[in-house]
């Protein structure tokens, strides 16, 4: 395996806008909100930044195409800006670009920004998009909840579970995120729910009800990364470093080969195996202190606990109901409310997850602060279980 990027890149500043239905804000406002926070945090001027990566998914309803909107909004001094898009892993992809540039020595300081303005489309949920000129001819006209709901039916079948029992574990996933999101002033949904409310919600796509689905939000988030030597000068001896960043896209097996059972995500397993190896973590259940995973739907978070090797196969429902991933559990998941309650502005989500881990590692998470977190794991799943991009990133303090 290659040498990897462990501890070669420091995060010296982060920012995140308030997520939610930002009817009053344009992408320029959201990005400025996140960027100014990060700039202040990093104690640098924007002229110190060597290059930027800009993540946007739905460009048509958002900022339009290309990288120049970022350069324009921030009045960057004509430095290189790269526009990236990789479904719901877009925000993480912008960070990966910036991190790799610094790790490679091409930049001293690099910027990653992700932004999405979903609430100007008029849609409840995500708008539809073309799947490609050939794929449109045969792929089903699915919605994200319907595509992820497949996991529910297949998981229950694989492990011989009664759907009513699986639904209880799924409801616990959502309940926990609402409890956490309630404490987060930047979260989109800050309302506690009861298990009964979640179980009795109107159906969206069997077996998912409304409260099994995450919020669709407006928002932006941002990270400034630098070489560790520079970080020491700017923010002192204690700073957050990137331990690993791994990406795994589907190669068609899920769509076209019977070896996939439909009850989990192959890509997450591959990406997390590589991420743990790159971060030199041999026992994730002992070393990972918190996770921010792609809980677009409750069933997704449930299967991800197994795909990230944090639950044994078939045991995620029990571990969830036992409170293992609650705020006071062994490995809290979505301590910031997650996609479920912090919200899911697609291009910003990966950076939002990193933002929470960054705050937790630096002890700045206020009411949500966990005790002595060691490593935090961020996970994105772009696309649908049948065809997706999984990103796993691990962060910790410099060593």
């Amino acid at each position, binding site marked *: 395996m290659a040498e990897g990027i462990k501890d070669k890149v420091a995060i010296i500043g982060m920012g995140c806008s308030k997520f939610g239905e930002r009817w009053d804000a344009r992408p320029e406002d959201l990005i400025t909100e996140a960027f100014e926070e990060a700039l202040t945090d990093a104690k640098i001027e924007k002229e110190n930044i060597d290059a930027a990566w800009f993540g946007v998914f739905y460009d048509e309803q958002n900022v339009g195409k290309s990288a120049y909107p970022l350069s324009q909004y921030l009045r960057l001094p004509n430095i290189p800006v790269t526009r990236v898009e990789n479904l719901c892993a877009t925000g993480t992809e912008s960070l990966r670009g910036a991190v790799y540039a610094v790790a490679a020595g091409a930049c001293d300081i690099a910027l990653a920004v992700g932004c999405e303005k979903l609430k100007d489309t*008029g*849609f409840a*949920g995500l*708008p*539809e998009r073309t799947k490609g*000129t*050939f794929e*449109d*001819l*045969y*792929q*089903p*006209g*699915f*919605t994200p*909840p*319907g*595509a992820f*709901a*497949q*996991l*529910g*039916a*297949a998981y229950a*079948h694989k492990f011989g579970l009664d759907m009513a029992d699986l639904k209880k574990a799924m409801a616990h996933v959502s309940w926990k995120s609402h409890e956490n999101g309630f404490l987060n002033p930047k979260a989109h949904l800050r309302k506690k729910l009861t298990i009964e409310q979640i179980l009795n919600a109107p*159906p*969206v*796509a*069997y*077996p*998912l009800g409304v409260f099994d689905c995450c919020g669709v939000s407006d928002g932006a988030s941002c990270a400034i990364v630098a070489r560790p030597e520079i970080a020491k000068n700017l923010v002192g001896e204690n700073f957050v470093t990137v331990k690993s960043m791994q990406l795994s896209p589907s*190669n*068609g*097996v899920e*769509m*076209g*080969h*019977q*070896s*996939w*059972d*439909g*009850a989990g995500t192959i890509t997450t397993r591959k990406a997390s195996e590589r991420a743990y190896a790159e971060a030199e973590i041999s026992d994730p259940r002992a070393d990972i202190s918190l996770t921010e995973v792609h809980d677009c739907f409750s069933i997704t978070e449930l299967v991800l606990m197994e795909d990230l090797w944090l639950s044994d196969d078939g045991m995620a429902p029990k571990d969830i109901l036992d409170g293992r991933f609650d705020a006071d559990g062994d490995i809290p998941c979505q301590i910031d409310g997650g996609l479920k309650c912090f919200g899911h502005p697609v291009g910003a989500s990966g950076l939002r997850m990193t933002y929470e881990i960054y705050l937790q590692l630096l002890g700045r998470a206020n009411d949500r602060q966990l005790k002595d977190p060691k490593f935090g794991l961020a996970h994105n799943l772009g696309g649908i279980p*049948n065809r997706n991009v999984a990103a796993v990133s691990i962060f910790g303090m410099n060593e």
Partner: protein
Amino acid sequence: MVQFGLTAYGSYLPFQSISRQAIFDQIGWVQGGLKAYARGKRSYADWDEDAVTLAVAAARQLLNTTDAAQVQNLSFASTTAPFLDRSNAGIVAAALDLADHTNCHDSSGSQRAALAPLVAACHNQGDGLLIAAGEKKPVKPANVMEMLAGDAGAAVLTGSENVIAELIAAQSVRSDFVDHYRTAESGTDYVLEERWVREEGLAKIAAPLIASLLADNNMSVEDIDHFILPVAYPSHARAIARTCGIKEDAVADALFTDCGFSGVAHPLLMLNDCLDRAVPNSLILLTGFGQGMDAILLKTTEHISSYKASISVQDFMTNLRVEDNYPRFLASNGQFHPDWGMRAERDNRTAQTVAFDKSRDIYGLVGGFCASCQTPQFPKARRCVNPECNALDTQQDYRFADIPATVKSFTEDWMAFNRNPPLIYGNISFEGGGNMFIEMTGFAPGGIAIGDNVEMDFRIKDIDDKRGFHRYFWKAAAQRKM
């Protein structure tokens, strides 16, 4: 002498029907007289079925019993063909994956459209003619045809080997008698008075034609074992039989009670129903009425005893799911336009270059079979999908259309746009290998489970309202339990 006649047949009815009482309950206040027909049920095609898909489905039933290589000519017959200027038969042929040199043509213009090529075949002894008829009659709410019509497909194949019903003779007569008509502008039928149609039209046209045909073949009305008169009104056949002197017990069931009148497909559908039960040496008088009449004499052979249609007309009718949701029935037929929501605004423009380039993949459901690791896969790709193989350019054509599959995962999606919600879709596993993520059909909400058997149905995939085009693909259909 070499026998010539029909060598195979196939029928198709959609999954669902609506009780005529349920229709009458909604429109009786407009047309109280329709109470006379408020009994039984009528079949109706889903929103994603049209004359082409109905014809394809019937032809596939036929090809379950017969080698497709026998088909040399294809005649698609309908008055409700989806395209006015594009070979609808060409779509049918592509879905059946017929040989490239198959001669395809559309037959239309009257309710006799399916019999015209059969009459010609009878005169010319034309081997290998597949007639595939489909009709999805657009009906206006409270029009009598809403009660009388039913949607169906039917197909027959001509040939000289293993003939099950010999084509003895045929005669036709023309008459511009307008019992009903429909134009591109009107969209639905304008129907004239029933008694005038029966007495001035049917009786006066049918009687001399039948007499002439029988006389020319040295036969009499007493010889007729089955008299098929496919018309919309269920009582007409008996009346005409009496006029002609045909014995009452020879009159074929008009399929009114459980199906309804399926227009161009109906002569063949009634014939198929007759053949489902016929014994050898039965004389069948098959007629078709519409601006004149065709009359064809057929005689079953000893091969009829061993021929078994994969699904009989009676079985199709018995297994129709009976709905009572009138607006849902209207929506299936384009007569109800609710606000389907924003997802219905999706632009379904078809990249015709790709659709043509991938025509066999999409219409024929032909994927790949890796010669290196024997893995079937859809779509066919340059590299094998098997993670243990990934061989380059090893794939041979592999048609999935006739391979049974089982449900591997599914959802019932109430958020996705579908004209018959919920949209049901998921992963299926094919017997022998292959996985597809695909839309499903034929399941009632709550009626699908992992492991259910499914079979592939050719259906409309998406409708492009902006450009008046729609494209077809296959869906995983609930297995018909017969």
